[in-house]
């Protein structure tokens, strides 16, 4: 490639950290089944358990409260599906827990699963968010009934970056006697996350959003919480998730988390400065725009911005041709024909969602990338607006 490509889509996925790559190569020959009693198995087991300790320590959990899964989506599916468990021995009280409360801005893996649960007889309430994407705590308090079995609120939103006050949410949930799950796939490794400070009962995290590989994630299950496996047929992960452990993926996740421990604090500050430069530059150079998401409680590298009269997929593709990768809330790019449900939930009109792009920066991005973006983007927007039937510059 002659042209330098700029990757601004770190909320979609991230490149492997060089140390993670090294760890993966080193463990490639550790082929033993961690469940085997012999030396090969025990050897593999030590790698898996070391990674478990690493993940647990990073979020303030105990190692036996961490189970490894195949993805963030699997983790979220597992936790929500506890609600319809009808097995004896799964200690989930089926007389008191048939209601789920979640929000309108969750990831599709929560929304689709909750829709499926609804068909199985679970009552689901979707909480509103305000114009910055914050959950309405009053509405949460009012929605919890003695029948509420679980509340699931995502910690940081993948599209607009807004971070919820999970601590306050967990206090409300526990006062009212219900359990709280948080999808922290976008939060863990980007901002400090401690399960005890937050007071959550379940938490999901993923490897590939934080410079680990795809296909591995973890779920925190607080000791004593009810649980029911989604994948059955083995005693792995203390009987909570059948399937031979993905040793390589788990080791890589452990290493990715370890590196986050070293790099996160500095990087958070750096990304915040870069985002501020980007936000300022866009606001100065391009008229008629809207930034979407909470101005303060937000992921350090995520900036969502909507351009009046410009369609998101067109913006994405013109940027792509200029070597810059972003994502969009436009329906056209998703293939679903529906614009971003997150942006619609903030109360912005559909045309804002259709005209929005998400810039998500990560550890490999530099201030130079921001400068290039600020040179290319104004031209792209001007060009699209010039042929737009829906743009007239405001005076």
């Amino acid at each position, binding site marked *: 490639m002659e042209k330098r490509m700029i990757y601004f889509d770190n909320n979609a996925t991230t490149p492997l950290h060089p140390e993670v790559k090294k760890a993966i190569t080193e463990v490639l020959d550790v082929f033993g089944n961690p469940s085997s009693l012999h030396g090969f198995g025990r050897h593999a087991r030590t790698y898996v358990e070391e990674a478990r300790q690493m993940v647990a320590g990073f979020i303030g959990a105990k190692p036996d409260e961490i189970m490894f899964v195949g993805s963030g989506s699997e983790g979220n599916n597992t936790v929500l599906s506890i609600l319809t468990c009808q097995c004896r021995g799964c200690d989930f009280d089926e007389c008191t827990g048939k209601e789920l409360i979640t929000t309108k801005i969750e990831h599709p893996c929560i929304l689709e699963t909750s829709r499926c649960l609804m068909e199985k007889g679970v009552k689901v309430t979707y909480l509103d968010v305000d114009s910055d994407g914050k959950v309405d705590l009053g509405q949460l308090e009012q929605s919890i009934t003695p029948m509420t079995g679980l509340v699931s609120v995502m910690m940081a939103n993948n599209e607009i970056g807004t971070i919820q006050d999970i601590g306050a949410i967990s206090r409300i949930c526990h006062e009212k006697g219900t359990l709280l799950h948080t999808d922290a796939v976008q939060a863990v490794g980007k901002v400090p996350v401690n399960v005890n400070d937050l007071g959550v009962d379940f938490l999901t995290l993923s490897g590939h959003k934080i410079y680990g590989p795809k296909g591995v994630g973890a779920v925190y299950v607080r000791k004593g919480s009810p649980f029911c496996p989604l994948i059955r047929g083995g005693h792995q992960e203390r009987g909570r998730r059948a399937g031979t452990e993905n040793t390589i993926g788990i080791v890589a996740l452990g290493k990715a988390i370890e590196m986050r421990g070293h790099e996160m604090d500095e990087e958070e500050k750096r990304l915040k400065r870069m985002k501020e430069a980007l936000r300022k530059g866009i606001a100065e150079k391009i008229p008629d725009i809207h930034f979407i998401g909470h101005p303060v409680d937000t992921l350090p590298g995520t900036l969502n911005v909507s351009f009046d009269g410009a369609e998101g997929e067109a913006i994405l593709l013109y940027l792509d041709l200029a070597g810059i990768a972003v994502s969009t809330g436009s329906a*056209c790019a998703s293939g679903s024909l529906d614009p971003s449900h997150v942006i619609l939930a903030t109360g912005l009109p559909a*045309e804002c969602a259709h005209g929005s792009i998400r810039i998500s920066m990560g550890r490999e991005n530099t201030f130079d990338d921001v400068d290039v973006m600020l040179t290319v983007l104004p031209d792209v927007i001007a060009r699209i607006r010039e042929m737009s*039937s829906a743009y007239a510059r405001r005076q």
Partner: protein
Amino acid sequence: MEKLNWVYTDKVLEHFMHPKNILTDEEAFQADGRGLTGNIKCGDQMIVAIKVDRDKGVITDCKWKTFGCASAIASTSIMSEMVKGMKIEEAFRLSPKDINKELGGLPEHKIHCSVLGDKALRAAINDYYERNGLHDKVVREEARVVCNCMNVTDHEIEDAVLEGARTYYELQEKTKVGTVCGECKDEVERLLEFYKNKHFCNTETTAPAGT
């Protein structure tokens, strides 16, 4: 790398990168007919403006503006080239399939984005007829109710097919057609085949390999 992964043909890319005949100054263009279709709430909108040689009944110029994605931009750009010099009646019959063929084939899930251009063109032609007192020539695309129970029209079925419905069941999911008495099933299945054929037949084979 970009070349290999690019889901559009070179022709689509060319018209996306260098769109032709953009209506930058509407007043100066002084259109003989103007058509607007789509809605920015739905994510795409199109304006097509035409100049007509009345004596010859030929479109002499065609310009456009859109709030739309790459496919909408490219397909309308190429359409605006195709209709120049075309008889009005012929231009009125131009179908998304003709445009798609000229573009060398769009990915199937992008075809629904490309149907706005010719719709807006027909609206512009009707507008031209009306402005010139040729009311008998105006052809309105009236929707016909197919499913009386759920009040579903043939247009809604066509839209559902464009949005990806390929089976009777998928049509029902999208439009609720035939979900009450079911009497319209035969007619709906006939329309389903008709619209699948109209928009998607042979798109696989017209798209050059490796694009």
